[in-house]
């Protein structure tokens, strides 16, 4: 998954609530020059709006908040871990420990679905989820992603 932004991997999120964690991940994408300062608030709001329509906490301690927007030119993924867990109003009621946040260009629905396929192929594996949750550095996460990519090929 080469759309994962290395500088937007947060091994330990400071926020302990959903909206704060979303803002923190978007801020990391701003710091990595993937999102402009001007877009920051708009994207945070759009992702929260999307979550309020239906949680992307699909169970097993992971959530995949996302937004499709015409202002997004390139697909980007930020990843954050929360050691304490965050209430994401997940479908199974459990806390979320790993968040994979996806920004997709609005006019590329196929790419969005391909990215989601890649994300869920990984997240549906118990071992992947466990290793991701245990990752304590962005290098740990990148190594895990690379190994998973290689295993799939």
């Amino acid at each position, binding site marked *: 998954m080469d759309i994962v932004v290395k500088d937007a991997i947060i091994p330990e999120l400071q926020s302990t609530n959903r909206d704060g964690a979303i803002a923190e991940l978007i801020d990391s994408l701003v710091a990595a020059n993937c999102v402009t300062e001007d877009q920051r608030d708009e994207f945070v709001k759009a992702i929260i709006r999307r979550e309020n329509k*239906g949680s992307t906490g*699909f*169970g097993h301690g992971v959530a995949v908040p996302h937004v499709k927007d015409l202002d997004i030119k390139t697909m980007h993924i930020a990843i954050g871990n929360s050691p304490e867990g965050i209430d994401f109003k997940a479908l199974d009621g459990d806390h979320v420990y790993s968040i994979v946040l996806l920004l997709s260009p609005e006019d590329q*629905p196929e790419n*969005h*679905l391909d990215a*989601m*396929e890649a994300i*869920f192929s990984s997240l549906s594996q118990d071992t992947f989820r466990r290793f991701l949750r245990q990752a304590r550095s962005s290098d740990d996460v990148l190594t895990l992603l690379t190994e998973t990519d290689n295993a799939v090929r």
Partner: protein
Amino acid sequence: MTTATTTITIQNRLGMHARPAMLFAEIAGKFSAEITVGHADADAVDAKSIMQLMMLAATQGTDLVIIANGDDADKAIDELSTLVRDGFNE
């Protein structure tokens, strides 16, 4: 036990993204029948699991093959095909 099956084309522009997958899994979950869904480029997955549905990467124009096994299989196929035919109400 009844087996029912159908092939239905994804209509909506955005394909089966997260929200449609949630609707699909929710409807499938109402039935006691075992339901799988797949297409030419993807192995059949459990229609009641959102995570597995997201692995289909089912874009607009994809022909979904839905297979249901169980007493309420016919009704399940009926409701799920209506949902897809209506473009997931988008």
